[in-house]
């Protein structure tokens, strides 16, 4: 924001205010306007904000929120991911590095697998292994790597407290560095977000 102009003399023919008083009034007006703009979410100095919801626990659906959040942080934006329901799998100590992608009813698999084959035992494991292999060959970071980078870059990782309770997940089952909150806290963050996505 540019510097404000010199305070104008009071109009209306009344006695002119002293320069000190004018400066004081101008400063007060400036502070109040800035405060009001900020309250309205119009602070031009405020960084852009990205609020993401991760609701799926499969390998393919773990990537988009993590890639977007880490990229947002790299672009000087504020980012938070709210992990809810199956999305909590992404931040479970035991699952984070072993997420799976189901071949069943998934016609988008690069190697198409008929559903009748997809139901066989071991097929989900095989499809997951294949996807991890493509990602590795493509130079894409793993999910645990992305989570580490998210934390390093200040992305807030918020676990949905209600999902924890409903699914019987304990806090110690989850990775370190998480916050625990509900819809209210997420919406408070998202209310001032410029980008909000549900994955």
């Amino acid at each position: 924001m540019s510097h404000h102009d010199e305070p104008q003399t009071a109009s209306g023919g009344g006695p002119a205010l002293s320069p000190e008083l004018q400066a004081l009034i101008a400063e007060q007006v400036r502070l109040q306007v800035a405060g009001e703009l900020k309250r309205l979410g119009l602070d031009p100095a405020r960084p852009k904000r990205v609020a993401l919801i991760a609701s799926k626990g499969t390998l393919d659906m773990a990537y988009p929120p993590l890639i977007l959040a880490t990229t947002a942080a790299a672009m000087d934006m504020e980012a938070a991911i709210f992990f809810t329901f199956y999305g909590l799998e992404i931040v479970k100590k035991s699952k984070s590095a072993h997420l799976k992608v189901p071949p069943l009813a998934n016609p988008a698999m690069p190697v198409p697998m008929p559903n009748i084959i997809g139901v066989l035992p071991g097929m989900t494991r095989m499809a997951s292994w294949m996807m991890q292999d493509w990602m590795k060959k493509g130079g894409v970071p793993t999910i645990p790597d992305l989570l580490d980078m998210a934390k390093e870059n200040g992305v807030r990782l918020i676990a949905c407290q209600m999902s924890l309770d409903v699914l019987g997940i304990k806090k110690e089952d989850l990775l370190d560095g998480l916050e625990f909150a509900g819809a209210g806290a997420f919406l408070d963050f998202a209310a001032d977000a410029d980008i909000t996505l549900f994955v």
Partner: protein
Amino acid sequence: MTKYTPQRTLDCRGDVCPMPLLKTKKAMAELASGEILEIVGTDPGSKNDLPAWANRTGNLYLGDEEEGSVFHFFLQKK
């Protein structure tokens, strides 16, 4: 030969989204204002991502040079 004289070169060959941006942010943080970073990479997506990054972070995207399948990107710190 290149028309820019970078103070630092960052190797992003083999990296794909989101790595080039994350590495760029880290490298740029260590440069002084006005210094130039060269990013050597193979990700064609970076041709759009790095100008967007520069625009968003207030740094200057100077341009890129192609050498077969290898790209050289030049950024100047604000």
